[in-house]
């Protein structure tokens, strides 16, 4: 096989890389720590991955169009605290409080989309601005203090359905839906097309702006789901919630084979990427590696993944 053909194969099966990395990591982790494969720890990992993965789902869609969303961590925080404030201080019914949180996420995503697609601000700048505004908004809203102590019915979101955490099932459901949308709807087709050749896609008459707007709305919506999940899991909304999560979300997508230049990758891969990031954090915790070092480790992994995966993945022109 000529080398180009070989590269193409890799290109199309980008799920193999994160899956392989995951298997390897699990083998290493279980040999390093006796606690790793205990039911307790597995449940813990599945709960943790749910929140990273839901952020990564939205992030991956944005990256597939060739953009980036740096605001997902901060949008998680503001959506989570809006829901918390509505529940605790305003005494709003749970469904409405949740809708309020989701609405804030959608609004933030829509603003990102408008800034990027209509005002034509590069996405990393537009979403950096959103990150600052949303984080500031969270601090203003909560006076910088945690809002904690929710009713049982709300905390039940972080409960179990049989052996599986509910959070995991929610995330899994979102992934199944998003992946089906990406591979079988016109919208999904345009997400890949915009990432592959934005100008060409516009020339055939596709409304590229609307596609971009929608992916940012999706990312905001996913971040809001993550915020509400985190509220339920921690029984509190912390104003600092989700700090640095954009790193995990981007790393999950990139490790999962989503090309930073857009157009290539899948949610299946992203899911494995999120598992890799979470298992990695988990094993570092079990090995009692401090949080500061974990940051460094994750940053390095993102850099290495981005370097190795961006070589030879663009199509030979």
């Amino acid at each position, binding site marked *: 096989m000529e080398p180009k053909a070989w590269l193409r194969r890799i290109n199309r099966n980008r799920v193999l890389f994160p899956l392989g990395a995951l298997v390897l990591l699990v083998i290493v982790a279980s040999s390093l720590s006796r606690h790793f494969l205990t039911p307790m720890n597995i449940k813990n990992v599945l709960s943790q991955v749910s929140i990273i993965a839901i952020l990564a789902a939205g992030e991956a869609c944005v990256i597939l169009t060739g953009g980036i969303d740096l605001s997902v961590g901060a949008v998680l925080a503001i959506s989570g605290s809006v829901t918390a404030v509505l529940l605790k201080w305003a005494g709003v019914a749970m469904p409405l409080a949740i809708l309020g949180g989701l609405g804030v996420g959608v609004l933030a995503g829509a603003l990102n989309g408008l800034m990027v697609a209509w005002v034509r601000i590069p996405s990393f700048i537009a979403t950096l601005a959103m990150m600052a505004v949303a984080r500031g908004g969270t601090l203003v809203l909560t006076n910088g203090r945690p809002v904690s102590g929710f009713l049982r019915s709300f905390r039940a979101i972080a409960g179990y359905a049989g052996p599986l955490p509910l959070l995991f099932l929610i995330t899994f459901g979102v992934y199944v839906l998003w992946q089906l949308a990406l591979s079988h*709807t*016109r919208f999904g*087709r345009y997400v890949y097309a915009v990432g592959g050749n934005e100008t060409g896609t516009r*020339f055939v*008459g596709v409304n590229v702006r*609307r596609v971009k707007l929608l992916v940012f709305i999706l990312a905001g919506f996913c971040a809001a789901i993550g915020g509400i999940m985190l509220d339920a899991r921690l029984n509190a909304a912390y104003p600092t919630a989700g700090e640095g999560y954009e790193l995990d979300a981007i790393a999950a997508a990139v490790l999962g084979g989503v090309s930073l230049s857009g157009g290539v990758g899948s949610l299946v891969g992203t899911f494995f990427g999120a598992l890799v990031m979470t298992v990695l954090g988990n094993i570092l915790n079990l090995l009692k590696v401090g949080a500061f070092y974990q940051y460094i480790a994750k940053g390095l992994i993102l850099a290495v993944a981005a370097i190795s995966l961006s070589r030879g993945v663009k*199509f*030979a022109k």
Partner: protein
Amino acid sequence: MSEENGKRPWVEMRGIHKWFGGVHALKGVDFHVCRGEVVGLIGDNGAGKSTLIKILSGVFPPDKGEILIEGKRVRFRSPRDAKEHGIETVYQELALVDNLDVPGNIFLGREPALVGGRSLLALLHKGRMMREARALLERLKVNIGDLTALAGELSGGQRQTIAIARALYTEPKLLIMDEPTAALAVQETRKVLDLVRKLKERDIGIVFISHTLQEVFAVADRIVILRKGEKVGDFPAAELAIDDAVKLMVGGEESPTR
């Protein structure tokens, strides 16, 4: 100038101006095409050829001037508007999406749906896309081989054929080709030129842009020459010599036949 061999123009552009910031890219250009006519559009780099046809295909509006189809004034706000009037374009910048397969490219922007019609959330009818893509390519007698290949994996000639096939899917009245042979090998170029001649027999109007004047003279019925944003010549191809065309393109001397 609206009569050409007794034919009425199908589309007419009148007094078209276009500025890009300080650059006056088109300075009042008149241009028309009849059905079944191949118009070769030539001019030096930067003469305004691409700009003119992008206005004709709805990529951007003219700053001044008007477009008429069958004598009626039209206004294109997007490429989609132009397509709806029967104007399809093969752009100079190969407009295929490298990470989509062949049917994905042919149907980009007008994917057939299982359910959901034209909405963004419609479910794609992938089976029909594959079948119709295959039928279309067979009709045009082009052989691509594996249609599940991604566009980025194909040769320049194959990519260009797909771009042309895509433009022909809706049976347009006017096909615009901006340097369709620029990236092609000799053999592949010949195929494209053959295709152009076949299309002419179907009564499609064609605008053909190329840097290789031999190609233009081989297929065109009429030749329009642009220089620095102005039309400096419009001749039946049979009455123009390549040397004279070159002189008009680069300027400096008086027009040889006018």
